[in-house]
């Protein structure tokens, strides 16, 4: 069976969910896989519901949207409430620990990642929460290699933020920040 994984990264506009999806898809292509990334966002610059979807497959991808996801990342409470129903049974859920207070009962594997807190305390800006979360996603799921992701980050973010983004990603990859419940 060819492997096909569908990921949905959700949150609010401005949290970098689209960029996180772009980096993930680019890393998959660097690893020699097929990948499609799509996005959905509101007309506002910040604050409206935003989501990014990535399909990583060994085969060519037809339908590009994710209907039922294997991995759901929720960076906000409203995003979780809206998208949890689309997570496959026994899927993987990652939430931002500070932004998502209540997690409804689910049979998914749940990981609470303090992505925003790490970004704020260690990198002095919450804009890096997305790459911290990405580090956690990759540690838990092994979707793509660390090397490919770092290369993808280098090629996806503005030059002046490369260092901080890489640092955030590596912090996210450090196991002790991830608390399975």
């Amino acid at each position, binding site marked *: 069976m060819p492997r096909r994984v569908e990921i949905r990264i959700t949150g609010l506009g401005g949290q970098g969910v689209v960029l996180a999806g772009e980096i993930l898809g680019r890393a998959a292509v660097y690893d020699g896989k097929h990948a499609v*990334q799509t996005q959905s966002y509101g007309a506002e610059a910040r604050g409206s519901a935003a989501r990014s979807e990535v399909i990583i497959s060994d085969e060519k991808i*037809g339908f590009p949207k994710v209907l039922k996801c294997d991995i759901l990342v929720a960076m906000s409470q409203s995003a979780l409430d809206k998208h949890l129903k689309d997570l496959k049974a026994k899927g993987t859920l990652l939430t931002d620990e500070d932004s998502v207070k209540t997690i409804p009962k689910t049979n998914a594997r749940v990981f609470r990642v303090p992505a925003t807190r790490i970004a704020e305390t260690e990198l002095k800006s919450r804009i890096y929460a997305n790459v911290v979360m990405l580090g956690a996603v990759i540690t838990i799921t092994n979707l793509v290699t660390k090397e490919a992701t770092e290369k993808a980050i280098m090629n996806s973010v503005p030059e002046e933020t490369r260092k901080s983004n890489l640092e955030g990603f590596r912090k996210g990859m450090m196991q002790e920040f991830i608390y399975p419940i």
Partner: protein
Amino acid sequence: MFHFYEAELIAAHRYKHRLYLKPTTKIPTPKKEAPMTQAAPQSTHFWQGNEGCAEGAIAAGCRFFAGYPITPATEIAEHLAKRLPQVGGIAIQMEDEIASLGAVIGASWAGAKAMTATSGPGFSLMQENIGYAFMTETPCVIVNIQRAGPSTGQATKCGQGDVMQTRWGTHGDHAMIALSPNSVQEMYNLTIRAFNLAERYRTPVVLLADEIIAHMREEITTPQLKEIEIVDRKKPKRTEKTFFGSQDIPPMPAVGEGYNIPVTGSTHNETGHRYTADPIVHRKLVERLVGKIERNADQLIEYEGYNIDECEAGIISYGCTSRAIYETVELAKKEHIKTGFIRLKTIWPFPDRVIQRMAQNTKALFVAEMNLKQLFYEVKRAVEGTVSVFPINKIGGGEMITPGELLSEIVRRTRNLD
């Protein structure tokens, strides 16, 4: 009044000192060691559809872009603003979409391959100039990344509601060429083709894409430059006198080459002079303009077909919606329904013949599109009642028609036909 006086004074001062010859902004000269001084080299990338379109334009030889920002087409302007100066081209933001296409038409007459990119509301504004480009036989490419209309509609959400506007948006008798990509790779390939067709047939060409394909990222392989077929417009011989007739696709001089010809959107004869009362001149001109596209339909039409000559249910689709048909075919196999499809890469001129071919060999045709039945009626017209045609439509929120939805409609209809 004061402002007018002041402007006049400045104009007079400029004229006196010939200042008007100096460009007000410095046009960037290409750096010798710029990172990418030409089209992207052969490689595999993870690009957005809009990036694919912009790079395809550069590969095709586009060296002038004028546009006005609009979701979901802005990335094309953004990318070309960065890239065109690197290859010695110009990207300019105009005051609106009317001026954008105006600048593109001007650049084309100055000899450049030129393009603009917009979405529904901007495309509406461009209609007048599209007619002008058609009437004056100006090669140019208009990219329309469709979003949910009418009016400003749902700016960030996908739609396919501009299909008929592309065909009939501008007034008067005309014929249009419109191409429909369904992948990032095709955003690149069909942009190149759009330029080639514009140059070959001396006419505006619309790349009719949609938000999902334009904003989607996926892998794309750019070929080696020498492998890309590039068509350039036919240039006149020194002795040539007719640039608007006497042959189907006349040669096109550029401004400054010394031909001193009028260019007008009013009815004109073979040398370009206005004839706004003569029935013969009008008939000859407009019939030739429409005819040069209709007669070459076979060269213009491209599609992807599967089981065209043998299927129970035939799906006709294009753009983002057509990304669902591959999985639908597989799902239908499990239901023991043999499906086929025609995925249109050329929407206009409409591929009547292949649709008719499929109609002869199927029980029912299904037209799937993200609008309220636009191409559906074209399919109905083409098959002339020989087979049942069913619409599958969905609009709003940028939600795609899923393979499951396509399947359930096909199952429902084909079982009822038995």
